């Protein structure tokens, strides 16, 4: 395996609506910032890969227009995934492993404020049995939370504690959308949104963009003082039909974690893409994280959730803290599909 390192990362402020800015205008400063963070220019980049969703933009091939933010002259090697940019990162990582490239620029973006995200997500489901019923993503997460409570392993106050930690951590994140000191009691006094979930148990809608630069080890060593290496990365997918899965545990996360080498050494922090608070608990368990691991020091998706970037952002936020010396070894997680159907786990290390 070739060493691959995260060289640079940037994210736009996570806002409820980026009114008066289109996707390209959101992206341009973020791309420039990520390249600058990596001490590189576009000329140093061998491959560009993005993650975005046409159903969010409301236009087919909307990701092609986004290339205007990169500047596609001279012609470049470029690819796109209709998924979170964490999977654009994975494609880029694979391409480095194949020996075809040494550097990659990855970005994601979405203006989810333009449409109705929970309903749009219902249309990514099985077109025969699920999509015709239009089951919104919040209701599906609520079903999962209902099952989790039935196991007796957690109570609603455990969901609230996840939110308390998220909002408190977010105080230190200038890009976070929801931040502050809140108490479990105050949260539990809020009305239900989709029982047993309350509004704060659900990630907010955030417009924005994120970008990251990765490079093969030899490039990283020449450019960075403390490269952040992707020591292991893997992703696994479960069956689609909700009734055929155990929604109270994440078997795909456990498998991906094993293959990524999570258990091989001490983990100090974990950035988890859990768009709903009960899912944080499921993921912590399935990753085998010890209680002293700091979860979502950035605030995580409950504090700010740029759809199509939230997974990449977990890698970026973990990498930032490793580079700053806050931690040596971290877990980054990304998810896709209903109720944690598809999960990616990576171990990031600075040495």
């Amino acid at each position, binding site marked *: 395996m070739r060493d691959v390192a995260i060289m640079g990362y940037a994210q736009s402020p996570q806002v409820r*609506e980026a*009114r*008066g*800015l*289109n996707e*390209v*205008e959101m992206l*341009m400063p973020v*791309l420039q910032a990520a390249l600058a963070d990596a001490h590189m220019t*576009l000329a140093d980049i061998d491959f560009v890969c993005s993650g975005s969703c046409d*159903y969010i933009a*409301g236009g087919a091939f909307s990701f092609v*227009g986004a*290339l*205007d*933010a*990169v*500047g*596609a*002259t001279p012609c470049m090697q470029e690819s796109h995934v209709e998924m979170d940019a964490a999977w654009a990162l994975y494609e880029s990582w694979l391409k480095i492993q194949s020996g075809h490239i040494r550097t990659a620029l990855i970005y994601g973006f979405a203006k989810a*404020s*333009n*449409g*109705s995200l929970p*309903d*749009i997500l219902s*249309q990514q489901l099985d*077109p025969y049995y699920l*999509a*015709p019923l239009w089951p919104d993503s919040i209701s599906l997460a609520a079903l999962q939370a209902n099952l989790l409570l039935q196991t007796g392993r957690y109570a609603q106050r455990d969901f609230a504690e996840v939110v308390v930690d998220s909002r408190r951590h977010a105080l230190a994140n200038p890009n976070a959308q929801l931040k502050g000191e809140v108490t479990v009691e105050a949260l539990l006094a809020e009305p239900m949104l989709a029982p047993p979930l309350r509004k704060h148990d659900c990630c907010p809608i955030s417009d924005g963009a994120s970008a990251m630069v990765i490079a093969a080890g030899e490039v990283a060593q020449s450019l960075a003082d403390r490269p952040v290496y992707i020591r292991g990365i893997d992703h696994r997918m479960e069956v689609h039909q909700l009734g055929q899965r155990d929604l109270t545990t994440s078997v795909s996360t456990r498998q991906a974690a094993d293959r990524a080498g999570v258990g091989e050494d001490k983990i100090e922090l974990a950035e988890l893409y859990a768009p709903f608070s009960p899912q944080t608990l499921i993921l912590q368990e399935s990753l085998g994280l010890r209680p002293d691991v700091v979860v979502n020091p950035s605030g995580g998706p409950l504090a700010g959730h740029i759809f199509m970037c939230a997974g990449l952002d977990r890698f970026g936020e973990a990498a930032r803290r490793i580079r700053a010396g806050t931690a040596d070894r971290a877990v980054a997680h990304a998810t896709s599909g209903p109720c944690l159907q598809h999960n990616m786990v990576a171990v990031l290390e600075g040495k």
Partner: protein
Amino acid sequence: MDIDLEPVAVFEAPIYLRYHATSARAITPFLHALRRGILLGHRSPATGKVLFPPLGSCPESGQPTSEEVVLADTGTIISFTTVHLAIPGSKLKPPFTVANIMLDGADQFFSHLVSGCALEDVAIGMRVRAKWRPASEWGYSLENIEYFVPTGEPTVDIPTLKAERLRLAQERRHA
């Protein structure tokens, strides 16, 4: 056991999604100018080229653009096609001609209709001018121009035009 029925072979499953879009940093002044009958482009600081319509970035360099350039409503046909099939949801009755038009002063073409002449007379290099709808009907849209009509000027040689535009852009870049 098997089910003793013919399987459902196909079924219609239309979905309709509603979106709410807001105008962006570059497009907002462009649309307001259109409402006043003005065609606004942007000059790229990186290439010196004038982009129309202005989307806020230079597609070649990825640099933000903001320098406004007012453009004439005359231009040259770069390419065209005549559409013979009715397009679902369109008010246009075939046959009609769509052209890629480069406005005088711009380095990028955009699409609009050509009319006011026999369809078989439309040609690459043809000089055209906008036929505007009455000003009382103007909104925030390129539909304020109903279509482009031939000016009657001699046909332009496209390679010559492109070379001249590139030369001008280079000059602007080094200015």
